[in-house]
């Protein structure tokens, strides 16, 4: 009895690997883009149920690492690929990768709805996030310590803010790292003296800061991001090792089609064109 059961199980285990794989696209990476990726996958699979699209998050770094490790076909990234990563790709796969912008986004800094501060300059934001400015009263707000929320270093948004706001400097040690933009939004919504950052699509129950540039307060609105007037506008990318082909190409074509770009707007980002 036990022997029959045992051999059945072993037989099953040996038979499975020999069975073929159906059409499958793996998409991995940016947490900023993961809801977008999932929505695309849902809509795409409704149209072509034979092809399965698998979307996982983890951060842009995770996606690009997976691209280099070979465990994903498409990497979602909210930042540009780094030189070191391009070199590793070339060393292993003899390619520097293919970059496809699929949507536009504006990195927004959020504060709690009760916070009187409405706009800050990029320098002030830098000061806060490297730890030089520690109290809201230094920014024209109430006398309270600034609670900083940040992302883990696997996040493309983390890297983007580091490069474009912090000028390469390090985040303050006291910055609490949260694993996703949604967690940041949630934390800022609950904590009245906090500040956080993330993609504009997530902003709910919190106040988005305008960026003060010269005399103007530029809001992260659709217009300003599309035209690039908002200083922290960025492209969201798909990265592949080689030019897309097969199922991956069909999926990407869908994402860039008017239907796909409508999904982008629905999720809260901005179309790439």
């Amino acid at each position: 009895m036990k022997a029959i059961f045992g051999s059945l199980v072993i037989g099953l285990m040996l038979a499975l690997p020999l069975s073929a794989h159906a059409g499958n696209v793996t998409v991995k990476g940016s947490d900023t883009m993961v809801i977008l990726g999932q929505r695309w996958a849902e809509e795409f699979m409704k149209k072509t149920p034979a092809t399965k699209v698998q979307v996982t998050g983890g951060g842009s770094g995770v996606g690009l690492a997976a691209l280099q490790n070979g465990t994903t076909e498409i990497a979602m990234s909210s930042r540009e690929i780094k030189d070191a990563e391009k070199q590793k790709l070339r060393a292993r796969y003899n390619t520097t990768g293919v970059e496809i912008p699929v949507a536009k986004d504006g990195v927004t800094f959020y504060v709690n709805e009760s916070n009187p501060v409405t706009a800050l300059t990029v320098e002030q934001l830098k000061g806060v996030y490297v730890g030089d400015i520690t109290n809201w009263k230094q920014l024209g707000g109430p006398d309270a310590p600034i609670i900083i929320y940040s992302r883990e270093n696997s996040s493309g948004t983390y890297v983007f803010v580091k490069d474009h706001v912090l000028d390469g400097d390090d985040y303050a040690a006291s910055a609490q790292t949260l694993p996703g933009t949604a967690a940041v939004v949630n934390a800022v919504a609950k904590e009245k003296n906090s500040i956080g950052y993330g993609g504009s699509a997530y902003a709910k129950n919190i106040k988005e800061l305008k960026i003060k540039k010269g005399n103007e307060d530029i809001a992260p609105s659709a217009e300003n991001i599309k035209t690039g007037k908002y200083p922290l506008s960025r492209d969201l990318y798909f990265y592949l090792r080689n030019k897309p082909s097969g199922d991956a190409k069909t999926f990407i074509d869908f994402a860039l089609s008017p239907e796909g770009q409508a999904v982008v707007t629905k999720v809260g980002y901005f179309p790439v064109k």
Partner: protein
Amino acid sequence: MDRQAIMEQGLTQPLVAPLLSPAARRRQLREKVIAGFITLMAFTGIAALILIIIFVAKEALALFTEPEARHEASLSKMFLAQDVAPGRPPFRWQPVSKIPKVSMIPLFVGTLKTTAVSMLVAVPLGVFGALFAAEFAPRRLRELLKPVIELLAGIPSVVLGFFALMVMSTVVKEALGFDRPLNAMLAGLGLALAIVPVIFTVSEDALTSVPRSYREASLALGATPWETAWKVVLPAAAPGILAACVLGFGRAIGETMIVLMASGNADVISWSLGDSARSLSATIAAEMGEVVVGSPHYSLLFFIGVQLFIFTFVLNLIASTWTRRVVRKLTGGAT
């Protein structure tokens, strides 16, 4: 006399093995094969431990062999103060950066903070609770406590982390007036929930193995039940209780999910419990997905794994030596 002579005679002659039938010989062979196979299976326990040591250390080895890794993450960078830029703290963990900062010190501090809080909460609860169960509780209550502890032990750590994050964070923040909802205190409390069952169970075992004669003698000499419990039973079970604490400590150091969800994960060096902390295990869990296999960051995370392994190994060694001492004291040495 005669019999002895015959026996001695028999012993001086070489003994001839009895002849076996082929069937018996086959049976003996089969027995030997089965015994050999089972012995081989037993080897897997040792093999697993050795393989863990080898393969975790192997991936960390690149830190010491590859030049790029050695430059980026040398031992001095990990443990000594770094002078990165004027006005910037000397110990930072920011491995993803133009100049990677890989100091282990904030991680050690973070791990110690959360573990210390958890021990300060769990040891009194666990040991006193065990004392109650072993000495003072009526039988009905004792029968209730055992399944309660087992249920608590059965809760997956991700659920405890979830509970700390969703429910306890606001309560702790309001009650203790902290600035941040996710901090070392919260992570420590969550960890305490995880290690109380360990400390309770092992302490209770130690207390109940104290021979009844100890208690009876103490009571006969006029001590009250509580005096007996505190001054006779507890000291007798002390090595076992200490071992329980060491086991709990080891569990707390290695625990990942609770700290990952509740500590805020900031690489701060501060002694305030209201500040966030970043522990060794949570760092591995949070950053492992991002690394490229073979990069210095990757080897660094495996190196943290090696350190965690060594810490828990040493703690387990201490715990087992202490338990052996209890057993010896209570059975061999007791007169």
